[in-house]
């Protein structure tokens, strides 16, 4: 089946590595870690006292009164999508708002608002709960705010599939364009839940690294000494555009979003399938959807979160679905795990790897796990001609999303 060509014409991000795409990408190529110690008082009682916190606080960029009405996840979604929108040069392009869609998801949603307002409720009673509480904590809040900022009228959507959210939101954006419901879709993910409750919850699952004395070394995908993921916050957005629409306005095209594959494990609510069966099917579907030979995919931005089980299940899946030729990286080693935003940030890294011919490094890979039998750009960026690349995202709930980007 032939699909409408969908291309990427804008990028935006605010991450633990930088306040925009350029600074985030530079930090990645330099192998910098965005992980640091958590300093609030509440962190003292937690087993995990590290996180990848935003490099630039949204308060530096958004008006104070506006911020009162925004959950942190909404504020950073607006910042990232505004960057992507400006980058795509669509502001004065005359785009019909009825042909503009939004697909921005979050893994957890407005948890910071929920928790802060619960504190107010307990301390001062229901009348003091902010009237902005509901639009701040509703899961569709970030997408709705972005739609409002851009005046999008082709539909505003919020995907929630835990750590696969960003990638699934991008897939939905592609589907909207392929189905003819929009010419341009601003797509991505956002997450801001660095707070004691989510951290306590994840750490009770024994999912998080407790390398508190060495924050920068805590996120170490595929390394023998890995002991869990590091929670990060941030937002990433890409502008997807019908290829002929982009060509007609002479837009800069970063890459083509050639295909996507989505599957569900039907296996366990949090554990990945040990052989990565759902991941294999997602990757295989994405390659078929992109209608390319799997040998063209020479680079993979892996999901690899630095957990003992998940990292190796993905290796097995990649070997089975792609073979042993691609050069892998796990940029979470630097950014931490942005949960619902990770698929969006890592799509941006994948797109820039293709465009610039360089694979960002996987830092802290000092002693590779015995099960790592594929080539990884360990600790140093690697130059590589990349005609096509894969970005994997997997989420609690058994969500598997694979995206294939190709050179424009």
């Amino acid at each position, binding site marked *: 089946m032939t699909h409408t060509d969908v291309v990427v014409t804008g990028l935006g991000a605010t991450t633990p590595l930088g306040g925009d795409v350029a600074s985030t990408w530079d930090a990645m190529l330099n192998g910098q870690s965005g992980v640091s110690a958590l300093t609030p008082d509440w962190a003292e009682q937690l087993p995990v006292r590290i996180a990848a916190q935003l490099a630039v606080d949204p308060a530096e960029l958004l*008006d*104070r*009164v506006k911020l*009162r*009405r925004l959950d942190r996840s909404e504020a950073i979604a607006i910042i990232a999508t505004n960057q992507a929108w400006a980058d795509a040069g669509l502001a004065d392009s005359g785009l019909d708002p009825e042909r503009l869609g939004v697909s921005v998801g979050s893994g957890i949603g407005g948890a910071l608002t929920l928790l802060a307002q619960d504190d107010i409720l307990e301390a001062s009673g229901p*009348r*003091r709960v*902010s*009237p*902005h509480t509901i639009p701040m904590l509703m899961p569709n809040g970030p997408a709705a705010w972005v739609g409002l900022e851009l005046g999008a009228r082709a539909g505003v959507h919020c995907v929630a599939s835990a750590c696969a959210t960003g990638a699934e939101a991008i897939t939905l954006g592609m589907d909207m364009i392929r189905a003819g419901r929009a010419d341009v879709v601003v797509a991505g993910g956002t997450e801001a839940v660095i707070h004691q409750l989510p951290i306590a919850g994840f750490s009770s699952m024994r999912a998080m690294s407790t390398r508190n004395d060495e924050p920068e070394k805590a996120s170490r995908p595929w390394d023998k000494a890995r002991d869990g993921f590091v929670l990060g916050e941030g937002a990433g957005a890409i502008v997807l555009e019908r290829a002929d629409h982009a060509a007609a306005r002479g837009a800069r095209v970063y890459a083509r979003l050639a295909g996507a594959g989505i599957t569900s494990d039907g296996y366990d609510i949090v554990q990945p399938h040990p052989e990565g069966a759902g991941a294999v099917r997602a990757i295989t579907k994405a390659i078929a959807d992109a209608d390319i030979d799997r040998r063209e995919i020479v680079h993979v931005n892996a999901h690899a979160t630095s957990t003992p089980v998940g990292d190796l299940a993905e290796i097995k899946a990649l070997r089975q679905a792609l073979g042993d030729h691609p050069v892998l990286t796990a940029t979470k080693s630097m950014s931490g795990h942005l949960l619902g935003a990770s698929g969006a940030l890592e799509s941006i890294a994948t797109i820039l790897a293709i465009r610039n011919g360089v694979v960002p490094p996987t830092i802290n890979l000092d002693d590779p796990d015995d099960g790592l039998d594929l080539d990884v750009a360990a600790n140093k960026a690697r130059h590589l001609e990349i005609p096509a690349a894969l970005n994997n995202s997997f989420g609690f709930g058994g969500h598997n999303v694979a995206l294939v980007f190709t050179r424009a």
Partner: protein
Amino acid sequence: MTRDEITTGLAEILEEVAGVTPDDVAEGKSFTDDLDVDSLSMVEVVVAAEEKFGVKIPDNEVQNLKTVGDAVSYIEAQS
């Protein structure tokens, strides 16, 4: 409290909650039409005013408070 003092107190609340410039706040100004205070922000203004001036402003009274002067009169009568 004088009417001027109440107006100044309301201006502080309006600045904090809705970003209204204090110099724009005067008795004749309408909350919605002149000062751009939307309905959710008006709820915040009312709750903050109750706290600041030690009064109760029931929801069914709020609809009668169209202007800053209306609010000042209500607060003056209650305090």
